[in-house]
């Protein structure tokens, strides 16, 4: 038995997870982690009928995992159950089409990014959104990102190559930096190079998480296999693979192996070399090797550690690194989740649940105010902006600015306005 299934035996039925689950708190459509996870899992044997399809309302936020006193991997149990539903044909073809459209950000990006202005105009068209809602079930209000005119990898390879004998890292940009927010990757490169680190950006695909959280395990396995084959050579040389997208790095580290039973030596080697961007910087800091930021950023900003980040179980490295920036005052949110949970909040039947889940966070962000809010995860950033009207940045954009890099428009605007 793999660790996910094994862990359900640890459940002591204490109900702590039920009190923490942000989805169960706002909707009766989802009875909560204990019932869906360790309890229903006992009835999901191969020769048993599907107990209940409400497990599809689990957003995968992992808040339950974090509070469970006995280490039950509830969110993964639920994700596997959803995978089982898809495999058993219990999810309608239309829903799967919708889910796949949402989950295949790489394919979509490859097609749409070259024609970004047109694609954006289409996606922002109200009529189009109404039609996609009724035909496909993608909520019309949900915050779809805009394709960027610039493709991150193109930008990266189009610039003069910097070489460092001292340190090298592979940058895993993920789909959002590649197609929607290259500014995050540019800031990351600026930070790494300021520290004298050579950045390598090999060809790479989607990490597969959106597919995993939609139960499309076969497709996710292909992505993971292809990432292993393109990144393994670096891992073998001991070069760290670091990413600014907290969900991509979590998938490479743990989610793909656990959900897909993908425990081969290669997958483990890749996992062992994968780091969240700030987790890596924190190691540099501890070794006394991190360049200290000097430019003051006299702002008070709200920061939300996304659930995917908390799920790394590495604390709050970006909070610690931001703590080095002179005059920057960061207030951390204690809210459980923004509600978007990857592709969850884009679905018509879940949009309102997502917004209700995120309410405490939105109230917090509004109460802190400030010209921008800070969050490590892309979909959460879009959700926060959608709900509060406040623009959001990745913590690396603040660090880059504090190193003197002026390419982060949102940060520069905020500093100028302070």
């Amino acid at each position, binding site marked *: 038995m793999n660790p996910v299934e094994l862990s359900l035996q640890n459940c002591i039925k204490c*109900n702590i997870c039920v009190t923490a689950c942000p989805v169960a708190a706002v909707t*009766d459509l989802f009875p909560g982690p204990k019932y869906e996870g360790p309890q229903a899992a006992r009835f999901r044997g191969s020769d048993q009928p599907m107990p209940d399809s409400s497990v599809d309302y689990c957003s995968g936020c992992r808040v339950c*995992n974090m509070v469970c006193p*006995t280490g039950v991997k509830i969110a993964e149990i639920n994700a596997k159950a959803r995978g089982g539903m898809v495999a058993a044909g219990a999810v309608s073809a239309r829903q799967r089409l919708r889910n796949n459209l949402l989950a295949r950000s790489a394919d979509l990006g490859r097609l749409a990014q070259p024609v970004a202005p047109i694609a954006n105009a289409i996606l922002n068209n109200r009529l189009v959104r109404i039609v996609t809602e009724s035909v496909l079930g993608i909520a019309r209000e949900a915050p779809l990102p805009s394709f960027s005119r610039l493709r991150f990898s193109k930008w990266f390879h189009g610039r003069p190559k910097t070489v460092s004998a001292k340190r090298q890292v592979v940058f895993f940009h993920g789909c959002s930096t590649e197609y929607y927010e290259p500014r995050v990757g540019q800031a990351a490169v600026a930070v790494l190079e300021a520290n004298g680190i050579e950045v390598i950006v090999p060809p790479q695909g989607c990490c597969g998480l959106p597919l995993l959280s939609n139960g499309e395990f076969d497709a996710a396995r292909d992505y993971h296999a292809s990432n292993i084959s393109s990144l393994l050579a670096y891992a073998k040389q001991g070069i760290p693979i670091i990413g600014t997208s907290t969900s991509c790095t979590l998938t490479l580290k*743990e989610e793909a192996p656990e959900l897909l039973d993908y425990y081969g030596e290669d997958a483990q080697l890749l996992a062992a070399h994968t780091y969240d961007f700030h987790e890596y910087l924190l190691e540099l800091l501890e070794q006394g090797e991190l360049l200290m930021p000097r430019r003051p950023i006299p702002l008070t900003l709200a920061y939300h550690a996304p659930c995917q980040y908390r*799920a790394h179980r590495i604390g709050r490295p970006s909070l610690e690194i931001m*703590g080095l920036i002179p005059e920057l005052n960061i207030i951390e949110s204690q809210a459980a989740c923004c509600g978007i949970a990857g592709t969850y909040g884009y679905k018509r039947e879940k949009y309102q649940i997502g917004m209700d889940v995120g309410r405490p966070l939105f109230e917090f962000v509004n109460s802190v105010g400030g010209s921008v809010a800070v969050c490590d995860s892309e979909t959460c950033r879009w959700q926060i902006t959608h709900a509060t009207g406040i623009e959001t940045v990745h913590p690396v954009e603040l660090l880059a600015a504090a190193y003197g890099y002026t390419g982060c428009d949102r940060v520069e605007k905020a500093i100028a306005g302070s």
Partner: protein
Amino acid sequence: MAGKPDVLVIGAGLAGLTAAWQALTMGKRVRLIAKGWGMTHWHAGCIDVMGEGVDDDGGISDSAGHAMAGTAAVQPDHPYAILGRPKLNEAIDSFAQLCRAYEYPLVGNAGKNWMLPSAVGAARPTYLAPETMIAGDLTDQRPMLIVGLSQLNDFYPGLMADNLNAQGIPAAAVTVDLASLREVRHLNPVMVANRFHSLTFLDEIADAIRPHLNGAERVGLPAVLGFEQPIRVKLELEQRLGCQLFEIPTLPPSVPGIRLHRILVQEIRRLGGVVQEGFEVVAAEISGSRVLRVFSEAGARQKSHAADVFVLATGGILGGGMVAAQTGDIKETIFGLPLSGVKAQQDWLSHEYFDPQGHAVFKTGIRVNRDFRPIDETGSQFAENLIVVGTTLAHCDPLRERSMEGIAVATGFWGGRQAASNESS
């Protein structure tokens, strides 16, 4: 808070939270990490100091006195005996003060234990109880009405009333059906508690209870009277019903326990401390007589946590701080600390479930010296910067003594202070 903390507390039960709070009041940088939420979410939200052996003029002074005079005579290493009565009183009083500052008074009964009804109607001796519970005291014979909610399945007013009647306490039972809860599947106490923010809900529940009062002078409800202002909810309901109200602890999740958790976490954060769950500490690095760091399980690789002083508050067998193997081996899970009272497996449990002597396995624990530093059987110290607090300690039997929260709060309080000063006495 960035960088290495002065004090790292492991465990988020009452003991760990109290230790973190106290180390913070002494100006230290404190981080608390825990595998998940702790016993606060399933205990009654009262502070039991010493329930067993309380006599007519019992109470904290005497029950603690009993602990020291009685228990201490046979058990001079009991945590209460290590602390002494003034320190025990100071810890418990400070804790009550903290709760009062958060508008959630915990009250003592003039030096005696309360006798509050449990969810099955048994008398439950406890020293400090939230103001929302004390009208249920069973030393007082006034008739009561026990009210259940038809959607809240895990609460049995009939059973409770029968048991109370059998003890000579006049009690009636009713289960009311609230329209606003009818559509809810899987109702739990936390979900009901969250509804008390609305006055409409208050009115609805009062209207549903009123016709059933039949001369009852007090009404017992499952402990669900909200999180933010339970005292106010209680007063509002009392006004509407014209009689006293009391909460009865429920099966988990326990709202009164969660209130204590929230108060402590809020206070820790107010003082600049960090509380993070999701960290299962699994190993430690020790050099000479010092703990350098501990390691928690994480995605792909372990996460290291360095600190100057470490406080171990992971609980006993129940809390997960110790594990017992089939072979009879019992281990403290992080440091592999030497344990006292380990018995062969066939002697772990008494054949009588309710044996007044308790079960041997629950007496297993970590021996400490006067500074709450772990020691082995020869008295030699395991490390100079490791403090152990809570029910993981040896020479006590919190279940049988009914001293669980008292030990957690008192040792957490003084252990936290000890960690902050980290001097040897």
